[in-house]
């Protein structure tokens, strides 16, 4: 009984602490804040207003940021799902010379921190003319070793019987992939997609390096530039709320894939 009381008390206190920042964000976004800056509870709106939302939408820049984020997120997500599905299949099931060597070379490269690669990539992309373009943010993200690893792990646990049967029926490997492997891999491919969505949508470091023109910013970088400039709580929170909605929806519908993916990536 005592144990139950302690558990529930801890649950509610922690739940409250974890939700409070989000509550402050959403409530604060409806607050006209200029006159209330000295009050610690300033984020509770007494007269809810849409003023902040209208303000960020006023010149189309914020909308452009959202659109940029959509472009530099959706294309890598789609590509990651395709490439990681196929490569995971190749490394799990196909026999070809150098298979293990290639896979473990890929895996070794995971240890290289992105911050190391970003310096030479900045120089390369300057030469390519990719600075201030979507290319710099899309092309390097078209596939990812983590996603390949997840699909490979998943397919290694599936017996080869189905494939073998399909070969005997005269199917070629592309047909087998499309008709046998892909339908089985839907959950793990969804995991790859959700991970890729979150990491691309939330990325700050790469846009910060490759983009200098405000109109090319994704919403993370745009919001970061607002944090420094506006100094107005309500406007910041309105921007945060809008940029939070896509990740929240993805999370709401695909929560299962996140948690399963995290477990799979860590504990074999």
């Amino acid at each position, binding site marked *: 009984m005592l144990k139950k009381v302690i558990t529930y008390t801890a649950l509610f206190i922690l739940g409250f602490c974890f939700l409070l920042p989000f509550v402050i964000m959403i409530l604060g976004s409806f607050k006209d804040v200029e006159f209330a800056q000295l009050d610690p509870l300033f984020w509770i709106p007494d007269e809810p207003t849409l003023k902040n939302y209208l303000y960020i939408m006023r010149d189309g820049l914020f909308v452009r940021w959202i659109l940029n984020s959509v472009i530099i997120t959706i294309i890598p997500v789609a590509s990651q799902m395709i490439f990681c599905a196929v490569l995971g299949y190749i490394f799990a099931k196909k026999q070809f010379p150098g298979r293990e060597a290639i896979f473990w070379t890929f895996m070794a490269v995971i240890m290289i921190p992105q911050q190391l690669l970003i310096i030479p990539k900045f120089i390369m992309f300057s030469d390519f003319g990719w600075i201030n373009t979507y290319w710099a943010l899309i092309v390097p993200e078209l596939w990812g070793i983590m996603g390949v690893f997840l699909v490979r792990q998943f397919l290694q646990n599936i017996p080869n019987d189905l494939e073998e049967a399909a070969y005997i029926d005269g199917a070629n490997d592309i047909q087998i992939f499309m008709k046998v492997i892909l339908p089985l891999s839907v959950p793990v491919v969804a995991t790859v997609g959700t991970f890729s969505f979150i990491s691309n949508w939330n990325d700050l470091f790469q846009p910060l390096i490759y983009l200098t023109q405000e109109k090319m910013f994704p919403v993370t970088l745009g919001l970061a530039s607002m944090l420094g400039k506006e100094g107005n709580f309500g406007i910041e929170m309105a921007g945060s709320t809008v*940029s939070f909605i896509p990740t929240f929806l993805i999370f709401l519908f695909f929560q299962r894939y996140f948690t399963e993916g995290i477990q799979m990536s860590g504990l074999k």
Partner: protein
Amino acid sequence: MTSKKTKLPFGERVKREWNRNAIVYIFLIPVLIHFVVFQVYPFLLSFYLTFMDWKVIGDPEFVGLKHWQYFLTDKLAWKALWNTVMFSVYYILPTMALGLILALIINSGVKSARFFKGVFFLPVVTSFVIIAGIWGWLFRGTDAGLINYIISFVGIEPQLFLSNSSQALAVLAGLSIFKVGGSTMIYYFAGLQSIDKQLYEAARIDGASAMEIFWKVTFPLLRPIHFYVAITTTIGSFQIFDSAYLLTGGGPNYATTTIVYYLYEQGFTGLNLSYAAVLSYVLFAIILVISLIQRKYLGQESKHY
């Protein structure tokens, strides 16, 4: 595998190989090219860069070990490394403890466990920019900050937080703990679920209290997870950048200049890309050592099973 050493004509063999492995050639070749262009080549270029003086306009000039020598005497670089180590101290154990506590609560059969699991995981999927924005307002160093308001009830004077050089790093660590605790929870939750229920039964029959069961059964059995989480949070802590960039700009008085923040400043504010490359190799060396320790230990660990 295909039947080997058949004496089929060459064309037939190619056709058969294509039927069986077309997908390998169609997908693996572009990926290998991509891998070389965007991973291997930059990695080598960066190493080459550390021996050069890169200029915005014109050819780079060979300077040998100049940048490496400068690193050894660069007080700010060592301060940045020290700050990063201090960040790890503030960050690693609290993150592990929070993750374990959250997992224990979720695993204890409470109602709405699924809902709360989602709540605790929410910061993991939320952008650093959003959380930093809220965090900055919560920890305002004036009477108007919510945290100052709350601690005033227990008689603590208002604190400066992000403007205080001895508190700023801890406030940033707090942000990261909040952001990452949920994913640590998932690892521990998986670990808790894999523990055989009969062990608890047996301990209870032996008359162990709930506390004893936790410290003598649950906690030691989670050892592989403690280790895995410790390694991943350590690697993560050495790469901390976003919150320092967003909230403190490395200050006050360089108190939150972490290794990656210093690298960013040197490379992209000061356009000293060669020296930034040296710093990035230092970071790489640290992460490599941590990862190798992990490999070695995990290798030993799996022998026990």
